């Protein structure tokens, strides 16, 4: 933490950057929120720990509208999102300076949701909660976000300075497609029932869309009048499903699987399953592809090679 602040203070003071994008303490215990810091004094409130879940890369689109260079603190998985935004010309590479920080996993706030927490902290291998009702402990290993249980590893896809080079080698964990495969095994009726039930919990708060770095249109089709889609979506009983299906297609090939959608959903809808199904299909049909791996080139869906698979070659969705 100390080194992060030192580096950033130095960048600010030496004029290399005009502002810093990082996290500060949120309004509630155990929550951190994205924040801009303009000077050394403000930087004092910057924090970085296992509670810093939010992916900061999307805020760089807005930062790009201001002059100068913005420094950003990036966890490994967030760096893929930023790289994808650079590939899509949404963020200019020379307008950001990236401090790559290692990550040991983010705490899932759901663990202490509805428990009247006053404060949370990590004590050894326990998550320690002080609640209205007293002191409680949760084994830390069970407190991580789903995305961290299938972490892609410590590598940053893009950075200017590595805080901790050895952490880049941290290997990948688990199989992120396991849950998708389990769903694929189910019958069509079972899958339909699963998604209907799941999506019926959606309250259309748009949190997923707002957090998603790939959802960065200037005007969302669900808001705009351009295609009459606003009314249309609302006119059918299938609305929530439609919203999520359209969104999944919208980000296909561009979704880096950063997991923000599932993290921010107040209804705990496992949106990552939908995105991972698309990723898995792309991998099977066009060969392994990781969006955000590179800031150049084409995603498999906007690329064509004569030996691409034929339309009906894929297996049933």
């Amino acid at each position: 933490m100390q080194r992060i602040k030192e580096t950033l203070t130095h960048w600010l003071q030496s004029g290399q950057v005009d502002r810093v994008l990082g996290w500060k303490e949120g309004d509630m215990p155990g929550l951190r929120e994205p924040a801009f810091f303009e000077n050394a004094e403000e930087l004092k409130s910057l924090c970085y720990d296992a509670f810093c879940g939010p992916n900061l890369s999307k805020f760089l689109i807005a930062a790009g509208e201001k002059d100068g260079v913005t420094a950003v603190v990036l966890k490994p998985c967030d760096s893929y999102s930023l790289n994808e935004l650079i590939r899509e010309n949404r963020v200019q590479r020379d307008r950001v300076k990236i401090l790559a920080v290692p990550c040991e996993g983010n705490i899932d706030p759901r663990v202490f949701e509805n428990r009247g927490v006053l404060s949370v902290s990590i004590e050894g291998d326990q998550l320690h909660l002080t609640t209205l009702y007293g002191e409680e402990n949760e084994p830390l290993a069970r407190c991580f976000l789903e995305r961290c249980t299938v972490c892609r590893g410590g590598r940053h896809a893009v950075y200017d300075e590595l805080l901790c080079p050895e952490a880049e080698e941290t290997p990948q964990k688990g199989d992120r497609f396991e849950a998708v495969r389990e769903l694929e095994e189910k019958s069509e009726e079972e899958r339909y029932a699963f998604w209907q039930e799941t999506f019926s919990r959606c309250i259309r708060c748009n949190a997923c869309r707002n957090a998603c770095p790939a959802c960065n249109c200037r005007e969302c089709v669900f808001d705009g009048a351009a295609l009459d889609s606003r009314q249309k979506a609302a006119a059918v009983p299938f609305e929530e499903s439609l919203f999520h299906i359209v969104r999944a297609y919208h980000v296909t090939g561009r979704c880096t699987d950063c997991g923000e959608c599932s993290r921010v959903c107040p209804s705990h809808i496992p949106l990552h399953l939908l995105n991972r199904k698309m990723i898995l299909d792309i991998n099977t049909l066009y060969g392994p592809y990781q969006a955000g791996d590179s800031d150049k080139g084409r995603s498999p869906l906007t690329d064509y090679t004569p030996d691409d698979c034929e339309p009906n070659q894929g297996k049933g969705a």
Partner: protein
Amino acid sequence: MPKIGVFVCHCGSNIAGTVDVEKVAAAARTIPGVVVACDYRYMCSEAGQETITKAIREYGLDGVVVCSCSPRMHEATFRRAAEREGLNPYMVEIANIREQCSWIHKNREEATEKAIVLMRAAVAKVKRDTPLTAGRSGVTRRALVIGGGIAGLSTALDVANAGYEVDIVEKEPTIGGKMAQLDKTFPTLDCSACILTPKMVEAAQNENINLYTYSEVEKVSGYVGNFTVTIRKKARFVREDRCTGCGACMEKCPSRKAKNEFNCGLNTRSAIYIPFAQAIPNVAVIDAQHCLKLQTGKCGVCEKVCAAGAIDYTQQDELIQREYGAIVAATGFQPIRPYQFGEYGYGRYPDVITSLELERLMNAAGPTDGELRCPSDGRKPKNIVFIQCVGSRGQTCRDKSYCSKICCMYTAKHAMLIRDHWPDMDVHVFYIDVRTPGKNFDEFYRRAAEEYQVDYRKGQVGKIYEEDGHLMVQGSDLLEDRQVLMPADLVVLAVAVEPSPDARKLATMLTASMDNNDFFTEAHPKLRPVESPTAGIFLSGMCQGPKDIPETVSQAGAAAAKVIGLLSKKELTANPCTAHPEEVRCNGCGECEKVCPYGAISYEEKELRVMGRREKRRVAVVNTALCQGCGACTVACPSGVMDLQGFSNRQILAEVDAICR
């Protein structure tokens, strides 16, 4: 509300036989905005068009829907009619109720219901049509012919003689194609080289023709009248401007084990070679795979013996960019290698050969100097068995489903020539049918069978095996209704033809369509047989389907006429249905440029007014002269910002809505 007229065509009984046209018209009348709807026997006839123009006049129509055949057939007709009456031609929509409805349905009720749905969709679309104005674009007065076989040469000569420049790109070191390998040609039995060579020379000497041999098309962009093509001129390692074709290098080259392609691999050649005596250009080429100098760095003999100083081991492939108004595909064919027919033992028994190999064995310039010899031991054959239709007309996955068309005739030719030169040889032909439609063709076959006593047997060969060093052919004779077993010194397989293996890659570059067998498809099998459905791309020769030389040359001439027709135009009507981004919502992500096959999209920093604020940012810009309206960008744009005039997202969704209602 715009005033719409709906006109339902019977197309004789083509549509009216399956679709209740009156009911379609009646259904149209119930749609808000439709002020007139009627049916007529032939809408495309003069009287039919008159019905439309009269209605435009009387009702002051803003839009017209014609329910008829495919827009490919008559969209232009109806647009012209509307234009004559002062209505913008792009305010006309076609509902295809023939190809997409009446022709494919049998049940009258269902077909009628579908026709009504298609009509409704077209009405929904026409209501959102906006008048469009077509621009104009110029024409580059030069044609590209891909493939220098007899087809490509004939087309090129015809176009060049009409006064236009033509480039020929040939992937082999010489022009000539398969015809150069043939000995004599049916039905007149004139020597193939004698009639082909003058054409090759004529092409080389024609000042309007530019030859790019040992070259391939690497990239194609642009559109009818304005193609840009990148040609890869492969390194020959011999300077074309210096080589005199003396052949000294070929004699001295120590690497002599390369298979001689021109002789179908029946003998070998040196690493540096000229494919055959009459090759054009008469320039050597080094086969890098077999060249000792290029492989190991040691040798350099050819450089020493070349008096002209033409050898250059450092030569690199050269990329050349050229502009063309029209492109002709003339990539020809190849005979299949019949390894999959294990029962015939091709590849296992050296004395089982293909017909093209036989052409080389009978050719005076071939590996045996024209003396027919068995490849195994060089003995003179006594019994020769021909098997027709190997790999053609089959029903299994090893066969082609089509008839290769030329094999009956060239087998008759081979049989006749053998009996003529070597009357002591016995010739047997196994056939399924003998097909000889063509001028003087049946007479030709009968001469072989009757005058030259070739033993024609209706039936197929089941097996060829070796017994005591002799090949035995076991087959059936359907007319005598019995199995036959005969010894053979030489077995000749008349194998199926297939398109050149690179044709598909080329078709993709040209965005020209192909059939399941990889033959190029024509725009209309009867009425536009030498045009590809892609504007500006024409078809010549075997690449479009099996043909003999007379047919190839006629088709080549027809393709030339089409090319000349195009190149003689001063300008072309451009397509007004182009894409345009809604700048305010474009975020400049760059996806659209990646998918545009015509390179029509670029990005610009533009100053925009967004909600009263000025801001400068990167947005997509479409060059409407290049845009072909394919619509790829409209679906690639993640923000739905790209839209196509005449096929806007709104219109398409309105159509979908109308269908789903």
